[in-house]
């Protein structure tokens, strides 16, 4: 690029270095909190989708089909600007006046709820892949439906879906970048912010790229470790 002079120091010189560091932490705890919500919700919803109870299945399916089919970017806008309108006027005013950092918490909830719908689908697929003999075998040993899921189906199902869940975890991390559209200063948002202060966007964006590559690689290694750690001898998958 003729005319463009690279100045990599925007990544570490004050005050930008400190801001960038803060933003990296925001990306990390935003994604981890979102992922925690996604795992809990995803497990509940995913199980509901394969549960014998019809009501549970309908609720689970409705959740997945509604949440999964609305783009995450649109949902961020929805959670930030539209969902609060459902609250009574007084509650809205209370929240606006008393909750600090509303954009951040909106992003955490939205990321968690959205990723949950995808996690739920992976879990459902995993549990569907367990032969029906296992259900019957569990029932024949006198386990209740709940116990059969708790002790047999879910433990097997989770192990099968670890590879797709790893992908989902990575997506969760990368989706956190969209939180900047509602003003959360995570890594990408900060890269753009420093860009608009210094007009050195190529450097800041490259920095953000490295941050994502580093964190996602860490996740991949971690999930690989989890996979070997919890693997059941005799099952398919990564073995130590």
């Amino acid at each position, binding site marked *: *690029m*003729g*005319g*463009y*002079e690279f*100045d990599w120091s925007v990544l570490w010189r004050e005050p930008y270095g400190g801001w960038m560091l803060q933003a990296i932490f925001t990306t990390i705890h935003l994604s981890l909190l979102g992922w925690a919500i996604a795992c809990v919700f995803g497990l509940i919803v995913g199980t509901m989708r394969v549960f014998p109870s019809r009501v549970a299945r309908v609720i689970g399916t409705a959740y997945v089909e509604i949440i999964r089919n609305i783009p995450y970017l649109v949902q961020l806008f929805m959670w930030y*600007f539209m969902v*609060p*309108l459902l609250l009574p006027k007084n509650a*809205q*005013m209370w929240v*606006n006046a008393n909750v*600090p*950092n*509303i*954009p951040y918490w909106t992003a955490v909830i939205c990321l968690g709820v959205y990723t949950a719908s995808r996690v739920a689908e992976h879990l459902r697929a995993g549990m569907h892949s367990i032969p029906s003999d296992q259900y019957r075998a569990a029932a024949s040993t006198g386990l209740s439906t709940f116990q059969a899921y708790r002790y047999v189906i879910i433990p097997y199902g989770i192990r099968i879906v670890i590879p797709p869940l790893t992908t989902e975890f990575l997506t969760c991390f990368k989706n956190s970048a969209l939180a*900047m*559209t*509602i*003003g959360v*200063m995570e890594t990408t*948002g900060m890269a*753009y*912010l420093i*860009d*608009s*202060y*210094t*007009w*050195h*966007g*190529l450097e800041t964006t490259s920095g953000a790229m490295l941050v994502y590559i580093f964190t996602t690689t860490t996740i991949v290694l971690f999930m690989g470790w989890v996979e070997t750690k919890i693997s059941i001898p005799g099952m398919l998958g990564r073995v130590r």
Partner: protein
Amino acid sequence: MKVKLLLATGLCAILVALPLLGCAPKKPETVLEKIKRTGEITIGHREGSVPFGFFDEAGNWVGFSIDIGEKLVEQLKKDLGVDIKYIKKPVDPKTRIPLVANRTIDIVMGSSTHTIPREDTVDFTITFFLTGSQLIVPKGSPIRDFEDLAGKKAGAATGSTNEKALRDANTAGIINPPCEILQFAEHPQGFLALQQGKIDAYCTDGSLLAGMRQAAPNPEDWEVVGRLLTYDPYGYIVPENDSDWLDYVNAFLIHLIKSGEFYQIYDKWFGPDGKVPLPITEEYRTLLTLQSWPD
């Protein structure tokens, strides 16, 4: 066989020689030379910056800076004596620098604040518009100036000079205790948040606030308050180190100001019947006069 060998050798020779040809020391072509050679000028305009560059009700791309752009093309036709095709390209705050730096765009005529760090990668023309950070609040709000933001929530566009102004006012103790700054990707979102009570005030350039208020369903429900916390001089952006082109555009702007045509265009957009009624301030008029170097 021999023919093949000959061909291969020839090809290799060409491949080796090509980069060498490119190495020949050559003065880079100036924008003016390029416009003359290609008969085209590419100008970057904003699409959502009322009234500098935006889409009107009929869907036409119009605005203050677009009118100036048309004048510039007319002037170029006269001075270069060739017909020039006027290519309009949309730019936003993210793309305007890279596109000028890599010479895809010859000049950005939008609404960009001229700052010292921005001078690192591009050059700016003389100031064509002067505004500064102000606040828009609901009618009757206790917030009258920046000091009143203490402990409240204020919104601003991410990375704007206004957001920086708020941040600086917090650190400097002008707003004490500091206000919480909520960032928004676009002005309409910030205004929506203000309507919903998510923020107590929204901060951007006074000129844009006037446009925002004008576009609101009930303009009377809102008021623009506060002194100019910062001065935001707007300039047009041209590629770095092409002083022929920069001088040309500056001279063009100065002649436009001196001939009074500039004020006609200003009135069209900012006059009492314009899109954004905004009387020209004393400081702004003085600045325009003072930077109009003699002929």
